[in-house]
């Protein structure tokens, strides 16, 4: 299928990426190339086949409702690009 630059814009918005104008055209082309290739799957008759989201037959992996100590806040915050004494700091978010 054709991948337009508008579609690239929409996908970029969803994935929080921004491409320069030249790159948009190039990306549209590359995505189209890959997507056309993967459409090869249409030749496979998958009627009635359950999609496989887990390759193992595992189920019911559960843990008991017990509290364990949390991570020391300093260890959590020390990796943050911007922080204050207690929290992560981000640009102002208007709701």
């Amino acid at each position, binding site marked *: 299928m054709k991948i337009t630059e508008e579609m690239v814009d929409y996908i970029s918005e*969803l994935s*929080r990426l921004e491409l320069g104008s030249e790159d948009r055209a190039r990306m549209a082309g590359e995505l189209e190339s890959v997507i056309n290739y993967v459409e090869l799957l249409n030749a496979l008759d998958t009627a009635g086949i359950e*999609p496989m*989201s*887990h390759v*193992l037959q*595992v*189920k*019911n*992996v*559960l*843990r*008991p*409702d*017990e*509290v*364990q100590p*949390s*991570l020391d*806040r300093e260890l*959590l*915050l020390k990796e943050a690009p911007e922080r*204050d004494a*207690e*929290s*992560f*700091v*981000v*640009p*102002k*978010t*208007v*709701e």
Partner: protein
Amino acid sequence: MNWETVIGLEVHVELSTKSKIFCSCITAFGGDPNTHCCPVCTGMPGTLPVLNHQVVTYAMKAGIALNCDITRYTKFDRKNYFYPDLPKAYQVSQLYLPICVNGSVPIETAAGHKDIRIHEIHMEEDAGKLIHDAWADATKTDYNRCGVPLIEIVSEPDFRSAEEVLAYLEKLKSTLEYLDVSDCKMQEGSMRADINLSVREAGTSEMGTRTEMKNMNSFKAIGRAIEYEAKRQIEVIAEGGRVIQETRRWDENKDASFAMRSKENAQDYRYFPEPDLPPVEIDDLWFNQVKASLPEMAEQKRARYVADYALPEYDAGMITGQKALADFFEETVAGGSAPKEVANWIMGDLLRILKDKGIEARDMAMTPARLGRIIALIDEGKLNRNKGREVFEALFDSDADIDAYVKEHDLIQISDEGAIATSIAEILAENQKTVDEYKSGKTKVFGFLVGQTMKALKGKADPSVINAILKELLDS
């Protein structure tokens, strides 16, 4: 034109498990920012979720109590979107196979009985909180709440009024409290309702464009928000405009709702099955264990109170409406007090005092033992009813010894006929005119004479003795 309001509700309820849904951090409300967190709930790279058994059990309990079918093979899905309170930029939720489907909640309003249908109930994880710092013109994130387990209860658009919505929410709250799966405190955010509202011409079946409202912190605010939004939409349409599908934020102070910036508008969440969590298969054993573990619910209690104690339906309904009241009632009765007596106390003074103080039954200091003692003192003739009520109110928040208090304040009932007769004689002597009125046929004044006698006896006398002696003296 006659308008009809059509409402659907999405109620988020925080489950009162000890630890979070996918990690072992504590779920307690409050706490210093970012002190109830770990690499898993803050979405650090390489971390993985592990499902809390109790969350599934609590969700099943809620589903069974709300008359749902339990989905025996249930899975999690990722809901993808960017927002600073969501550290992984996806929320683990359930779309394709939610744990409960097709339930119903019976409600009573002025218009009568109605069953509100539940579309589905699913498990998901809560997000964190944003803290807005006006000084620094920045926003801060607190991830304590990330990973607190939620169930989302999605209703069909069956509501037609704010009254119905509030009755439903009361019912949900009561049911979940009975199950002890959540403390349902709207003011703490452990119960939140999103309102989907549209309007249409009465009698038509096509749905109008709906808006979604969030951020109502009390039942009262919900009622106000519904009325406001219905009115707003009707005005928009009446003026020839179209309602825009959007998310609106309720502002308590302004008593109005405002369109939010498009975080939610037309979002593509790209749901797909969560690869890090295997499915959950609920076998008959597990299901039956959970079903058997359900406590006696409100409806059963109500029927039992009516049958066993001959309580009026209305009273039984009020008392069983809140688990704390029902528990209080049952414990007081278990302590030896007569059921009808206890019911009267609850329906009368107790509920009134709670309302005046603005507190809920589950938070009150008054105990079954203490009410039981007051009732016993009245039964023994040591307190008259009015004084008993005074004591009840005075000591409502205290743990002071009741007998000591009664003695200290000289409240013990006077039943001595001699003393009462003396008092009556004095009152009659002071009120010859009234006595004459009584004897000339104006029997109404009897009450005045009783009142005066009681006053003279500082309110402590046994009113039945006063009545008996006074009548005897006057009629003689």
